[in-house]
């Protein structure tokens, strides 16, 4: 179990933005964007060598401002987008842009860590997402299964669908929708559903979760008062098309069936402060990762609402003996919904958690003080699910 120990990487700056390199399916690679008002901000490309338990990093400069959100293209390893603050003396504006990283970093050049600080490289700007008419950018989402040509950004109360043209050097606003109504209508986050041929997205504003059809840019469902307070994040179940997870300031994580939005399917109340992030595992959707400002990351096993056939699994403690396992499989109790592990390596609020795109058993979490922790799903559970 020695290699199950968490791997910790410290950034010099505070950070909120974390993403896996979505297009990369072999190497475990995460991108972290820093937040500093007084220094040049950076994007750290974290390569994790699973065999040797070693972290390699490359630093890219991101000089335009502090990074609030980062996401990567699902098609091109070298393309990423950031939402960043542009500050002038009297005004802060959050903008978004699409960037390309230097070619040699795309698949991780394994340089030695000590001289990395000396040769920081710069991102190549592909295009700005012009938001002068729409307000502050909250996040940028790439079309999940697409060719990296379509992105959606949330700006204040607008949903903007962009087409990236001419090898992403130009972003053309193809359609948009605005949320009308009274009160504070600002999108806090959104997710693009991988189902329905990638025609649906879900957004969160205040306590409401809304679903949109990207073809008509119309609202298709609305979960009013999904949480008692602000909804912080959403995620779609990658295997069950109508299932959606949400989390928020009421310390809860809720699971919804978008066909029936009056009641959550399930509610988790494990955190003791706002839950900032919720993520389904990409392949095993019973594994739910949540990060919260109580400085904890919690990995839950939601078997009962996963796509996994219920009752297929066996008990943890009997895993050691795999010979017996097959014989006993039938008489064993199905695994219950439970918290698998609570990770307490962070000492500040955790604002981002992400699964690796390459290894389904590995995830990273980032706390505000710049600490990135890479953890694995407990081995016992892993075998449980696999066998």
């Amino acid at each position, binding site marked *: 179990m020695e290699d199950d120990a968490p791997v910790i990487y410290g950034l010099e700056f505070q950070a909120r933005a974390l993403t896996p390199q979505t297009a990369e399916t072999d190497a475990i690679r995460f991108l972290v964007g820093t937040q500093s008002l007084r220094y040049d901000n950076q994007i750290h490309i974290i390569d994790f060598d699973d065999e040797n338990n070693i972290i390699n990093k490359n630093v890219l400069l991101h000089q335009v401002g502090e990074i609030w959100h980062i996401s990567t293209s699902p098609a091109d390893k070298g393309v990423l987008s950031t939402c960043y603050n542009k500050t002038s003396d009297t005004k802060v504006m959050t903008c978004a842009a699409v960037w390309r990283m230097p070619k040699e970093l795309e698949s991780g050049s394994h340089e030695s860590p000590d001289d990395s600080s000396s040769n920081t490289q710069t991102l190549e700007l592909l295009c700005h997402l012009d938001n002068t008419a729409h307000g502050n950018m909250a996040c940028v989402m790439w079309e999940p299964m697409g060719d990296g040509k379509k992105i959606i950004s949330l700006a204040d109360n607008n949903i903007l669908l962009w087409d990236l043209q001419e090898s992403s050097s130009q972003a053309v606003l193809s359609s948009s929708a605005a949320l009308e109504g009274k009160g504070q209508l600002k999108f806090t986050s959104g997710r693009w559903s991988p189902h329905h041929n990638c025609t649906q997205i879900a957004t969160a504003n205040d306590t409401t979760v809304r679903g949109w059809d990207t073809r008509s840019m119309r609202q298709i469902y609305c979960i009013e008062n999904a949480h*008692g307070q602000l909804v912080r994040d959403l995620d779609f179940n990658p295997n069950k098309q109508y299932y959606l997870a949400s989390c928020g300031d009421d310390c809860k994580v809720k699971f919804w069936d978008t066909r029936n939005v009056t009641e959550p399917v399930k509610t988790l109340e494990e955190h003791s402060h706002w839950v900032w992030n919720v993520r389904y595992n990409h392949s095993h959707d019973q594994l739910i990762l949540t990060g919260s400002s109580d400085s904890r990351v919690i990995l839950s096993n939601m078997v009962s609402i996963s796509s996994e056939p219920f009752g297929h699994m066996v008990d943890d403690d009997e895993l050691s003996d795999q010979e017996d396992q097959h014989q006993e499989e039938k008489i064993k109790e199905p695994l219950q919904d439970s918290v698998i592990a609570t990770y307490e390596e962070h*000492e500040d609020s955790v604002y981002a958690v992400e699964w690796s795109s390459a290894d389904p058993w590995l995830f990273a979490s980032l706390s505000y003080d710049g600490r990135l922790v890479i953890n694995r799903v407990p081995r016992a559970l892993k075998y449980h699910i696999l066998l």
Partner: protein
Amino acid sequence: MAAVTAGSGAGSGVGDSPEATGGSTGGGGWRRPHGPLQRYYGPSTAEAAEAAPDPTDINGPHFDPEVFMTKVRSECPLGQLLAREAALGREIRALDSDMQTLLYENYNKFISATDTIRKMKVDFRHMEAEMDDLAANMAAISASSARVSAALQDRHRRGAQLAGVQALLRKLQALVEVPGRLRRWAGTDPARALRCHARARAVLRHYRHLPSFRAIEDESHAIMADLAQRLRTRLREETLDPKELTECVEMLLQLEEPQEELSEEFLSQAGARLEAELVTLEAELPAPDPSGTATTPPPPASDILDFVDRGSSAFVGTLCQLAGSYRALFGGDTGRLEPFAAALATRYFSLLERRQTFFLGCLGDVRQALAAPRPPGKEGPGLPDLLATLAASVLGQLKAVLAYVQLFTARDVAFASLPYFKGEFCVTAVREGLVVAFVRWLCRTARGFADGPAERGAPAAPPALLLLLARLCLDYENSTISYILTLTDEQFPPQDSGPAVTPGPALCAEARAAAQRLLDHYVQVQGAAVAQMLRKSVETRDWLGTVEPRNVRAVMKRVVEDITAIDVQVGQLFEEGVRRAQSSDSSRRAFSVYSSSRAPGRYAPSYTPSAPMDTHLLSNIQKLFSERIDIFSPVEFNKVSVLTGIIKISLKTLLECVRLRTLGRFGLQQVQVDGHYLQLYLWRFASDERVVQGLLDEVAASAAHRCLDPVPMEHSVVELICERG
């Protein structure tokens, strides 16, 4: 005295020399007839003599003149001897004259007795002759009496015969009339008909071999069968009151209808009747409120008491009556009655339980009282009063219900002695079904207030109500549950072999859990309210372009006000709690000095641009030493803990919100001022002021990080602004 007289008499006979021989012989003649008497009358004197034979006692039976003389002569001086002698002489003379008087009297009596005897002898002789006469007369009288009776005997016999014939004829007449009478009464007065038939039946049966009697019997049988039929239809069809029902069945029993069938019918009839009553009662109950909250106005308490009153008097009364008559009618066969009564009683209980709506009613009242706009200047009813009212009314209600239920086990009720009512009823129905279920229900309802409104849509309960319920549940845990259970066990003593009962501690734990849940929820609701205020205030403000702070922001004052109000509210119901004594006696002044000495040290490294790593290191090191603070953590049942919970939630929100903003120089300074202000006013509410301090430090540090131009305000200025605000 006799002995003394004798002794002294003998002594006087020999002159003044007290010689023993004369005394003893003369005394012996006198003493002899008195011996038995004395033995009879004077066991005490005999005993005394045996106990202490004193030969010197001149009056004692063991007097020995020799010894006496020796003693007197040896002990007394001459003068005394002379005096004694004179005294003895006087005594002897006196005794002499007494004896003479007695002798004379005795003689006189003897003479008169002789005379009387002689007279009697003459009288008896005369009487004997008269007695002979009388005997002869009596013989003559008896002889003539025998003659007279012999003469009358024949006539007397004939008279008796005639009387017998007449009685028989009368009976026959009655028998002949039986069918007619039966027919007449069958319709109007079946009871009388029955009595009539019962009388005639035995005779008829006896003489059935005579054709004429058989005809009568057959006819009356037919009539009675008809009557039975009619009674049965009556039994089946009409809704009789219990008394009629009993009569009816009684009559049928007399008609020798099968017992089994009758008891069955009786029960079904009684069941139908009781059922009807239950339905009536049920109809009076308000329709069960599906939402469980007080959306419909709950019935006032008096109605409910009235309801129970009526329910008890009508239903329980009927049930008791029926059960009593059943026992009277069908004797010891209670096997069928038991489940029947049990089933009905259970139904009745289920009805009673529905009266738990009463509790909702109370809650509704309290809610209204809380929500009612208080007339300005006049304080509405305080929370403790409300709590007391609520608790008292709920408890009173429960007691009333118990009292009514106790009717079931009252001594004079016929079936109270059934084993079911002794054991199972007490335990299952009353203790578990009523009391335990009630407490559980109460806890559940209370929890519902905490869990329900958190879900979407449902109207949220006012925080004060949450607090009130939390206190109520806690009180239940502490005392009320055990009180109720004791009360129940007293009134309905459980059987040793009865089914398992829910132990008090389990209920207490439930109540405690509910209380905890409510209080946590209260903290969350109140914390969220304050946090919401803070969040909105941070989010909507332009922190970059703000001007130099001159005042504490109004929202901070509002926060402090709200928290003070909460403090008062909680303080009404919960104890103060323990505050970690760090500087418990520190006045505001002292505290601000403490913080001012510390604050510059904290800010300094953040503003040194040369070493970005240091900031980290420092804050990390600081975090290593501070405990992890759980923001939404369970609170304890005291004021300080509750307040600490609320403050933690509020300040953590402030921290997170500030981190999401970018601040200008004056923005930072405003945060600084606000933070200091909060510190000044909030530390005294928290259990550990370091918690407040720590969170505010983090706010300040985060604000400094998020500031484009981090120039902190002079601390004295900050203090000044806060003092002024």
